[in-house]
């Protein structure tokens, strides 16, 4: 009840139910922005249980959601000016799809939450609408015998819910597909960047320190002159792997994500040639720069499999068998050539 997005209360036969609105507040939106940038994302939760969206009656539909606040907000904001009951499962603050894969958004939790909330006293019908992406966790045919409610899978995206409801709970084939469009990929970039920058900052400190110690001249001057190359190479690699790869995913050659990362790395190298290999003090440094960029980009590209919506575990394992050794070798050569250049200069 005392959650900031609860705007009132609704009395039912099963007790007082917190009421929410389909209108997101500035605070909800700010929370979304923070979650997208990875700030407090693991604790961005909603208390599990039943919520009233608007003024639902005993015939209003029941929609099931995860207790990740972003999932919950997505659902209610898709239902502008509609009344419904929202049953929030305890998914440990994880979104629907991930939670279904882990089994926390599963048949057991659904049945438990239906019973715990006294849903059968709140509504007259016996129908639950689940997000389609919860299907890896919920066996719809087992729900009815266990709690008396029939489970129906709604569309993949919450935004298609109004059309689904208006069509008498029918989803078109397009509503049943999970896509990975430009927007879907773009919103994932911030978290990828935040993640990569933590390592980049650490690596930059190490390289500047090494450059200062190994280079010629004063420590500070040497650090700046010789450290800049490898640090810009890694930064370019991060940009290629965490920004270019997601953006250009359908157009980068190859199916494996590491391959796409390599191409993105080469593209970034070509674009930034004057800043990288172009201003290197010798062949060793130039080759080192390219290897640094490409190996970092390949690694981050490979990591983007975790955010994509279509990679299988078998495929990722297969890709990793060649990609990981290649990335390690590439990175080792990047460091090795750069060190060699310091000694031979």
């Amino acid at each position, binding site marked *: 009840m005392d959650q900031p997005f609860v705007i009132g209360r609704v009395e039912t036969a099963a007790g007082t139910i917190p009421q929410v609105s389909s209108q997101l507040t500035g605070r909800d939106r700010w929370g979304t922005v923070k979650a997208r940038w990875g700030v407090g994302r693991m604790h961005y939760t909603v208390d599990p249980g039943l919520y009233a969206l608007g003024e639902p009656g005993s015939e209003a539909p029941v929609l099931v959601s995860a207790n990740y606040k972003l999932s919950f907000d997505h659902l209610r904001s898709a239902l502008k000016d509609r009344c419904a009951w929202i049953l929030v499962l305890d998914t440990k603050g994880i979104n629907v799809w991930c939670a279904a894969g882990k089994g926390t958004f599963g048949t057991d939790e659904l049945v438990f939450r239906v019973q715990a909330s006294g849903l059968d006293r709140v509504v007259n019908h016996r129908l639950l609408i689940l997000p389609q992406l919860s*299907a890896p966790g919920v066996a719809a045919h087992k729900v009815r015998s266990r709690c008396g409610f029939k489970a129906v899978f709604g569309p993949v995206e919450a935004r298609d819910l109004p059309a689904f409801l208006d069509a008498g709970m029918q989803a078109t084939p397009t509503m049943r597909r999970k896509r990975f469009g430009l927007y879907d990929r773009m919103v994932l970039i911030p978290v990828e960047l935040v993640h990569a920058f933590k390592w980049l900052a650490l690596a930059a400190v190490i390289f500047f320190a090494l450059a200062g110690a190994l280079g010629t001249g004063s420590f500070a001057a040497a650090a700046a002159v010789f450290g800049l190359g490898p640090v810009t190479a890694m930064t370019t690699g991060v940009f290629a792997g965490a920004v270019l790869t997601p953006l250009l995913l359908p157009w980068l050659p190859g199916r494996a994500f590491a391959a796409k990362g390599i191409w993105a790395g080469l593209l970034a190298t070509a674009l930034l040639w004057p800043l990288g290999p172009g201003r290197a003090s010798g062949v060793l440094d130039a080759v080192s720069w390219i290897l640094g960029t490409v190996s970092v980009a390949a690694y981050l590209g490979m990591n983007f499999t975790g955010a994509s919506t279509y990679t299988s*575990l078998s*495929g990722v394992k297969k890709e990793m068998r060649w990609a990981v050794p290649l990335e390690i070798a590439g990175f080792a050569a990047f460091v090795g050539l750069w060190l060699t250049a310091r000694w031979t200069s």
Partner: protein
Amino acid sequence: MRGNLVYLKDVVSLQYEASRCVGCGMCSLVCPHGVFVQENGKARITDRDACMECGACARNCPTEAIRVQTGVGCAQAVINSVLGRTGDSCCSLDSGCC
């Protein structure tokens, strides 16, 4: 989703036993990548390489006609499990999975 976004060829662990299928259609309904179609009262795999091993079809098949080794197609998760680390370091927002 076909288009230009298809993952590796011939790797997925999806197995389907037509003899057990009763043609209920659930696999085609729950699959987010259109891997199954219904034909003459039975399911048929039409786009095997599009499968991401989410396990939705197997979980919702009433006759256990489908088997798939489920897992999350995420490199970070594979690295973590090899290193013996646990945690959700790879859990993405709404789009992908972890």
